[in-house]
């Protein structure tokens, strides 16, 4: 048997090294950090953060060169199962940038807490590698591998404060529900493969047109539900608040932005390439999930007194807005739905990370996660106060700050679809925008209008790494809000929809 295999002439596949250079840089970086960490003296561990930051930025370089030189889509790698197109590149850049900002945010927290720095950064880079791969995956297997690659390190990162019960709870909950979700997803995928005979998404897409069999319907539902866990859509969101609250805050920032975006990217790719013909199944399913997610997320967020928990629920509800355009993708607005989701992910990342950065900066002084601990922030740290105002106002969708354009795009896709159900969803979303403003404003009210809770008005001086993170996120939030054309250009995504012949 083996001898007969060996007898066949084997030719090495041509590999487009440039196309997979970002992944290669990350892999090299992971090994480098791992090795250096072994021999590095404990007192010099801070260097790991810097090194990881450089690796992240280093991996952006090939992304940029690919974008500039690219031109045509590179899909020759692995038989079209791993594609580097504009869609993949902009998302890779996003994940790497988010990774960089999270490194900036974690630096001091890890240093001061005496946590395992080297290991943390290695795991984070592995997770980012998974995300970067996710952006290019066009096959059920590679989607799944990327998903596990990005999730498993995240389970451990959530439990990083290992002597803290809450952190352990966060890790365990995230792990158990995450694994369960993977199981559901894998089950659905096996049905898909069984009924279509392929794992390649474009081939599944071709086979799934016309009437679906019962098995296929089940498969679609399972796959979408599996991803719904990852993006913490209601009713699959129950892990999110506990995990977000218990995990170290930088990890929470990472989970609520990067990990969630990666889940959305996976969902997008699978929906657009593989399940496009099954929109009669997933359309109503996603419609209901979007409506529930934004409403339930908001209702519960209104009642939170802990700011991280509030942001956790707010990010659940934002997820509903991101899902919203996908509910109507099958009704002739595929392109604008896709654009709406990608734009939302890009801008949401800036605003949400920024809000977490302010929380980290303030918590360094107040050592509290209560919303009331923000009282009177304007009087002793006006810079942080104004920045938090910008981030929260953006999350509330107030122009001209970042997310307004994303919300506009999402509404636009719905109204473009023009069906009654789309209009109903748009009205639900409009009402939810107001409810969301209610709790964002509550934080702003503390910042601007309440007295300092304990009368301690020593100014806050965050370390320079946090300032840098704040600068990046604030610039992104403001600039993209006023000149959204800068990223809207990238969201012209003929590559993904082009595959469908739309």
């Amino acid at each position, binding site marked *: 048997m083996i001898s007969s295999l060996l007898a066949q002439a084997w030719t090495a596949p041509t590999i487009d090294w440039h196309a997979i250079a970002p992944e290669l840089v990350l892999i090299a970086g992971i090994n480098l950090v791992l090795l250096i960490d072994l021999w590095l003296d404990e007192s010099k561990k801070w260097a790991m953060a810097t090194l990881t930051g450089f690796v992240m930025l280093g991996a952006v370089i090939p992304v940029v060169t690919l974008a500039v030189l690219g031109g045509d889509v590179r899909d020759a790698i692995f038989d079209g199962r791993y594609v580097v197109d504009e869609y993949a590149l902009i998302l890779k850049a996003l994940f790497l940038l988010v990774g960089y900002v999270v490194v900036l945010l974690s630096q001091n927290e890890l240093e001061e807490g005496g946590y395992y720095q080297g290991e943390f950064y290695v795991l984070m880079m592995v997770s980012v590698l998974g995300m970067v791969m996710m952006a290019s995956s066009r096959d059920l297997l590679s989607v799944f591998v990327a998903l596990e690659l990005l999730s498993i390190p995240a389970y451990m990162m959530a439990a990083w404060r290992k002597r803290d019960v809450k952190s352990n709870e966060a890790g365990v909950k995230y792990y158990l529900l995450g694994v369960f979700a993977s199981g559901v997803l894998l089950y659905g995928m096996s049905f898909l493969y069984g009924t279509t005979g392929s794992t390649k998404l474009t081939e599944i897409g071709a086979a799934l047109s016309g009437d679906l069999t019962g098995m296929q319907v089940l498969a679609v539902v399972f796959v979408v539900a599996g991803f719904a866990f990852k993006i913490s859509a209601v009713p699959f969101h129950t892990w999110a608040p506990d995990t977000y609250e218990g995990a170290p805050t930088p990890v929470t920032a990472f989970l609520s932005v990067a990990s969630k975006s990666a889940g959305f990217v996976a969902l997008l790719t699978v929906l657009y390439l593989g399940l496009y013909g099954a929109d009669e199944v997933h359309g109503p399913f996603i419609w209901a999930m979007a409506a529930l997610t934004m409403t339930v997320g908001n209702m519960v967020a209104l009642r939170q007194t802990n700011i991280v928990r509030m942001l956790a629920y707010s990010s659940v509800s934002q997820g509903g807005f991101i899902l919203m355009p996908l509910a109507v993708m099958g009704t002739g607005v595929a392109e604008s739905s896709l*654009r709406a989701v990608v734009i939302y992910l890009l801008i949401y990342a800036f605003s949400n990370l920024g809000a977490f950065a302010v929380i980290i900066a303030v918590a360094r002084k107040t050592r509290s996660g209560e919303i009331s601990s923000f009282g009177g922030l*304007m009087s002793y740290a*006006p810079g942080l106060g104004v920045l938090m*105002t910008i981030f929260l*106002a953006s999350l*509330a969708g*107030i*122009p*001209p700050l970042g997310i*307004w*354009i994303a919300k*506009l*795009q999402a*509404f*636009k896709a719905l*109204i*473009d679809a*023009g069906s009654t159900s789309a*209009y109903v969803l*748009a*009205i639900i979303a*409009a*009402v939810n*925008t*107001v409810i969301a*403003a*209610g709790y964002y*404003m509550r934080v*702003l*009210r503390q910042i*601007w*209008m309440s007295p300092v809770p304990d009368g301690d008005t020593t100014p806050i001086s965050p370390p320079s790494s946090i300032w840098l993170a704040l600068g990046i996120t604030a610039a992104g939030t403001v600039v993209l809000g006023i000149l*959204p*054309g800068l990223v*809207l*250009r990238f*969201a*012209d995504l003929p590559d993904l929809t082009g595959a469908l012949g739309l």
Partner: protein
Amino acid sequence: MQTITNDTWLLTVGTFLPLVGVLLMMFVPASEEKTHKQIGILTSAVTAAVGVYTLLRFDFDQSEKLQFFVDSEWITVIKSNYTIGLDGISLPLYFLSMVVTLLVMIYTWDNMPDAGNPKSFIILMLVLQVGMAGSFIAQDLILFFVFFEVVLLPMYFMIGVWGGDDRQYASLKFFLYTMFGSALMLVAFLALFFQTGAASFSFAHLMEAGALIDRDVQIWIFAGMFVGFAVKVPMFPFHTWLPDAHTQAPTQGSVILAAILLKLGTYGFVRIAIPMLPQGAKAWAPAIGILAVIGIIYGALGCLAQTDMKRLIAFSSVAHMGFVMLGISTLTDFGINAALFGMVAHGLITGMLFFVAGSVKHRYHTLEISRLSGLLIQMPRLGWILGFAAMASLGLPGLAGFWGEFPAILSAYNPNFGLSEALFRTLMVIAAIGTVFAAAYLLWLYQRTAFGRPNPEFEQSAHHPVGAGVNDEHHDVDLHDVTKIEWIAWTPFLIAIVVFGVYPQLMFGVMDPAVSLLIERVGAGIP
């Protein structure tokens, strides 16, 4: 739409100039309060000077055309452009916003609200000015929406930080109401965009293509816009945020709110909702008229029941904006002219009343009408100014208020486009009764506060020399008549009220050509 592309830089500079001041102030430490006030006054003065230059350059013979027109790319992907221009409808409001900001800034010089921190306060006012001016020049729906929303946060903070005791409740109420309105409005805007073929967000295009939409669809889209603009106006039954916001806001906030922010709503009706959806407007006109008249009567009755002077003025705003909306709902040339005039007049008069209320509060530390009396004896000049503004507000002929109310009532006699005459004539009669109420509550207010002997509570401190320094101590009442700064800030208001009252043609002449064109366009869209 015909346009004139002269001095294309003018509107952009005039609108965004306040941001230069904001930028400067960011680099000055908050402790240098005087510097901040100086920068604030200087910036708004320069902005107002640009406004005056705009007036000079404006071609009044062609006021129906958009002038200083600019149309450059902004967000091409969603087909929204940076399209700006000014015509006879927007010019008075655009200029008013600049002047009001300048005068309020001057007033702030020695009337900083108790919470202090002029740096943030002035920065917020300047940002507010950008949003207000921008809303009046925008000729693109998305651009308009952005400017319309920019005013939201600064006003929220102004009320919430520098306001009265109940400020947090009032500010949140203001914010959520407005947010709710604008969310539905945005949905309506997008629906309009797609129903017109998703080609462009520019006003000119939407006015042409909007008229061709099916009547039923127009009615739905109009409903969405109606909620958005009616909250801002505010119309009954969306008005409940207004008394709270006005009463709690600092004087500066109340003045800006009354003079400009409320006008964004009525302006939206005239500029966007009605010309773009003529059939929707016609279908909704009776409802708007009825709600407007309910607002007139309800506002007046509300005034009669108030015990707080500032709250009374706030309720009178509901009534006055009712007259404006009645004028708009007739869809006549006459009525909309009256409404636009009424907007400016109400801005000047109610702004003035809020200034007086602020000064009364500053001196007596109370606005309880029952505790105030004898203003004319203790502070004759302030008392006379209050009387003057009250007369103007009740619509005394010869003062600006008259030309907003009287033609609006008159226009209801003959509504346009076959609207029910019986209904509108009934509304006319009720609105006319409303003016009697207006006289009643304003004169009663004046009688209670200005006439009679001064309240003994405040008697002994009246011996202080008139015009003594500003009093910052809370319980030591220091009564002094109108100060120099107050004179500087108020005189332009007083002069404008008289000038527009005596010679209303000054404004009607500018607005009428643009309004006629608008009505013509609406008429073309109604089969």
